[in-house]
């Protein structure tokens, strides 16, 4: 803004003197107050004077005040607050506009109780808080599972709000559109398995067993695993972000208010689609993985193409395919649940959406590993 051409003081300044045997503190502000300039040295002196026990009155004045902005206001508010805290009598002889802004700034809070208490953030309290929150969180997850079961029941009874067009769009999105990336990763993984096997097996002259290694490895677990990892990053994160953003924008509330179960509308189609598509993608990944192994076996190891295919069929019993499908189905359920659960329980800020997405992906991956461990142990015990 403009400044006075005949500037007397280029900087903010404050003059303070005590009168009436130290009872009255006379403060006058003058000069040029600009935001970002440091407070004049006398300002601290004024605040110090206010703590003097002899001072009972404060008088605020403005002399030669050229230009000011809210930095002056901040200073005055601080002075007046300090004075009032000590119960001093305050008299204002300031320009009219300044007085009005001051009274606005000093107006009491809408309610004394609105001031938020700062939360205690020590290590122990955080740890305790986490521990206490764990049980309700788990209970909440089971409640969420229950909601999905109830929603599934409504679907069977034909009372669901789920739309077929949504389901088909989600199936297309998580199934068909995932094919390119699944092709790439599984093919490469088949290649890797074949290379790893090749190094060991040539020492015994048993190269042809590479076919069995790749076949069993891909069919039994690695096909499902590749799909699980790719889908938790690709789809689980997307579900959490989508439902989370819908919560921030009150779109989920709009569904509830319209009498539509959000779980029917948002969660159930995603859980169904992913549960159906992950096993199918697993089968596809198996085939791509075996194709990768075949490429290495035939072009680099010099195996006969028919010999390789024959060895694959001979060495991999069909039950491995079924075991792989079991893994895949569980992974699909875990990814969908993790994504939707964290999305639906998302807080109402942009940061909360980011957190929901991260947690969804991490929980999906950890869940996949845990499920793999459990299923593997069960399969071993059953001798499958």
């Amino acid at each position, binding site marked *: *803004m*403009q*400044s*006075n051409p005949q500037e007397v003081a280029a900087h903010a300044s404050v003059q303070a003197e005590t009168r009436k045997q130290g009872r009255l503190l006379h403060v006058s502000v003058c000069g040029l107050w600009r*935001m*970002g300039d440091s407070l004049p040295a006398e300002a601290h002196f004024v605040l110090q004077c206010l703590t003097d026990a002899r001072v009972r009155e404060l008088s605020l004045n403005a002399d030669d005040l*050229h*230009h*000011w*902005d*809210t*930095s002056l*206001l*901040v200073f005055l*508010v*601080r002075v007046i607050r300090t004075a009032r805290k000590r119960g001093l009598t305050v008299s204002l002889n300031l*320009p009219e*506009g*300044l007085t*009005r*802004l001051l009274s*606005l*700034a*000093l*107006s*009491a*809070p*809408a*309610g*004394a109780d*609105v*001031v*938020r208490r*700062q939360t205690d953030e020590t290590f122990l309290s955080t740890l305790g808080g986490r521990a206490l929150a764990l049980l309700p969180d788990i209970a909440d997850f089971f409640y969420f599972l229950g909601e999905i079961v109830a929603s599934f029941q409504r679907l069977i009874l034909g009372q669901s709000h789920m739309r077929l067009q949504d389901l088909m769009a989600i199936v297309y999105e998580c199934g068909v559109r995932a094919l390119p990336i699944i092709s790439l990763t599984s093919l490469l993984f088949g290649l890797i398995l074949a290379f790893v096997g090749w190094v060991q097996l040539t020492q015994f002259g048993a190269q042809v067993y590479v076919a069995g290694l790749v076949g069993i490895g891909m069919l039994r677990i690695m096909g499902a695993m590749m799909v699980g990892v790719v889908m938790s990053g690709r789809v689980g994160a997307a579900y959490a972000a989508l439902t989370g953003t819908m919560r*921030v924008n009150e779109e989920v509330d709009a569904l509830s208010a319209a009498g539509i179960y959000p779980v029917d509308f948002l969660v159930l189609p995603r859980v169904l689609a992913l549960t159906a598509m992950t096993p199918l993608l697993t089968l596809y990944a198996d085939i791509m993985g075996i194709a990768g192994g075949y490429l290495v076996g035939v072009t680099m190891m010099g195996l006969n193409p028919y010999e390789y295919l024959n060895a694959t069929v001979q060495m991999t019993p069909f039950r491995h395919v079924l075991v792989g499908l079991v893994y895949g189905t569980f992974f699909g359920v875990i990814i969908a649940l993790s994504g939707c659960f964290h999305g639906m329980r998302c*807080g*109402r*800020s*942009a*940061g*909360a959406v980011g957190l929901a997405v991260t947690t969804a992906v991490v929980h999906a991956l950890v869940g996949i590993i845990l499920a793999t461990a459990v299923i593997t142990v069960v399969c071993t015990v059953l001798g499958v």
Partner: protein
Amino acid sequence: MLQQECEVRICARDLQVGFDGRVLMRHVSFDVRAGEIFCIMGVSGSGKSSLLRVLMGLKAPQAGRIFYGDTDFWGGDQEARRNVMRHAGVLFQGGALWSSMTLAENVGLLLQQYTDMEEQEIREHALLKLALAGLAGFEDYYPSEISGGMRKRAGLARALALDPRILFLDEPSAGLDPVSGRMLDDLILELRETLNTSFVIVSHELQSIFAIADNSVYLDVQSRSVTAVGRPADLARDPETEVNARRFLTRGKV
């Protein structure tokens, strides 16, 4: 305070705004002076918000020029526009608060970025701006924890953070209760009076327009041009005013 009434802060000449190939408004020219409250009026879809976005540097005009003081706003580069906008504050229609920061942090962010103030000083400034907007005591709340009207006022507090010379307000009183709306008008007048701030306001709220606006343009959707210029309260009374503009200002009574 010094008041140099003659100083022109924004000077728009022959602006043409629109989307892609579509033209919303042609030949828009006006001046906004220091300490003036300037209102952009028009029915929905007439290009008010687009014009505001052009003035704020978020969207290039299809033709015409804008001068902020001596700076050719769209003739220069992005850096020049950022420098101009540092001295302007914006209140967006929905408040557009940063949802993962508290109100004090929302206001303080600009101070942190553009001044050398200490943490404590920034907080004091932020609290003052929130108090001016009537939100004393709510500084540690998150935007999702307060009501829509309060979010709007917090948005205003954020717009005021750097004591801007020009404030752009997009529908400031929409969604406010009558008392808060009146409080906002009073605050606008107070800031104009004391800090000599200029305001560019897009608004439908006739009561508030009549109460505070010094000057205005009416954007006519049919002719895609400015059909009325002047103080809204005078325009409403003047029988010479173009008929659509009068209908707007009298809520269709003409």
